[in-house]
């Protein structure tokens, strides 16, 4: 369960002034939830996910995590570009206390990087990077997965595989998926919320959330 209560976040702007990204946002993510969060570019979706993950701190309010939560799975973060996919896998295995072989085998099978597994991650295409990221996070068993757009870049085959694995992995677990593409939410999520101008509105029904988002 993740519980967040009256969370606010602002950034200091250069030359003075503040940009308020989140104002008094509250909510609960329970085991088994598959929550999609819709919002336009710059609405604060990624900021919210980083705070749920506990890597960024709110200016006020509190966030409590009582389950294992993945790192925010977003493009270009959490991995080291100068290191190969395999070395990144070893690093993730070490810091998340997993058997190195298990993580390596899983990633090789899931991400299908072939010989690129031993190439520096900076040579990867966006799709390959997304596959590596998801593969690494699935190799570590988290109770809750925080996904920030990375599912959006794969090709047909990958999207199908990711969808199957997510459905299997997130049974009885939680998923928070952030996107500005309504179709992805419909694929992965059972409930949804819309983030707009600093406030988060929850909807039981994904279609309702999509309709609200489109009317913004």
């Amino acid at each position, binding site marked *: 369960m993740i519980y967040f209560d009256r969370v606010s976040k602002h950034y200091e702007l250069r030359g003075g002034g503040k940009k308020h990204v989140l104002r008094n946002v509250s909510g609960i993510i329970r085991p088994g939830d598959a929550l999609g969060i819709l919002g336009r570019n710059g609405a604060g979706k990624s900021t919210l996910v980083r705070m749920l993950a506990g890597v960024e701190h709110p200016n006020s309010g509190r966030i409590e995590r009582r389950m294992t939560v993945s790192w925010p799975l977003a493009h270009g973060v959490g991995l080291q570009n100068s*290191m190969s996919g395999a070395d990144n896998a070893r690093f993730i295995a070490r810091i998340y206390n997993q058997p190195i072989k298990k993580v390596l085998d899983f990633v090789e099978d899931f991400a299908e990087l072939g010989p690129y597994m031993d190439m520096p991650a900076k040579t990867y295409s966006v799709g390959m990077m997304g596959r590596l990221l998801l593969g690494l996070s699935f190799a570590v068993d988290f109770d809750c997965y925080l996904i920030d757009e990375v599912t959006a870049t794969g090709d047909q085959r990958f999207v199908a595989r990711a969808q199957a694995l997510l459905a299997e992995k997130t049974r009885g677990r939680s998923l928070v998926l952030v996107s500005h593409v309504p179709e992805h939410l419909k694929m992965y999520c059972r409930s949804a919320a819309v983030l707009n101008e600093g406030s988060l509105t929850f909807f039981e029904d994904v279609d309702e959330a999509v309709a609200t988002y489109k009317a913004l």
Partner: protein
Amino acid sequence: MPDGFPAARSQFDRTIEGLKVQGRVIHALLLRELQTRFGRGHLGFLWLFLEPLLLASMIGVIKSFVSSREMGNVPPFLFSVVGYAPYFAFRAIINRATTAFQANMTLMYHRQVRLIDIMLARHLLEMAAVTCVLIIVLAGTSWITGFMPHDLPTMVFALLLLFAFANGLGLLVAAGAARWEVVDRIVHPLTYISLPFSGALFALHYLPRSWREMLLWNPQANVHEMLRDGMFGDQIPAYYDVPYVLAWVVLVNLLGMAAVRAVRTKLEF
């Protein structure tokens, strides 16, 4: 708090678990640091101490040809290596600290990786490298010339003090550089300017008394004197004040940790 919300674990359990996690993270960071700095080639790990060994030996060899009065009766080569090798490690820690957070921002996406772990891993690596260099040089010279360090425990203690001091300063520099860009610019010239005041190049005994007393305000100069005392013993009279250095070590480490903590919330992803 909503109903059915699991209770937090006890403080003690969390502390023990936290220490285990920190150990794992630092281990992973150490291996990663080795890889990114020296590559995966077979000679990669060797470069870690070959580089400072080469540098310190070169200076040592040059000094043994143009040996001067400042070195007393001790072998100029050893004198230089014992001074320069730790000094290089110290300088590397301070200079590299300016980019430490910026270069590792992506790691901050993993909750268990703390800024302080990143710094500790780097510093431990530098420490391991210079320790290897000293062991190789000392073992080599004692084998060839039969020269043995006068008092090994004093040397080890001095090295530990030097690294603890560098660690605290490194934390301060890293936090400062993350907050103000200008820190990055001034740290490098400062480390060059500070070289003559570090006490690494010459024994303070051969300086006029007033200069010596001025230099001894610098804890680093005390540590280098202590190192030479452990190495050469009575051959060169040494001047140092261990409690004074310890006080500095505690001060810069506490300030450094506080600064890193304060800057954490200000870092932009």
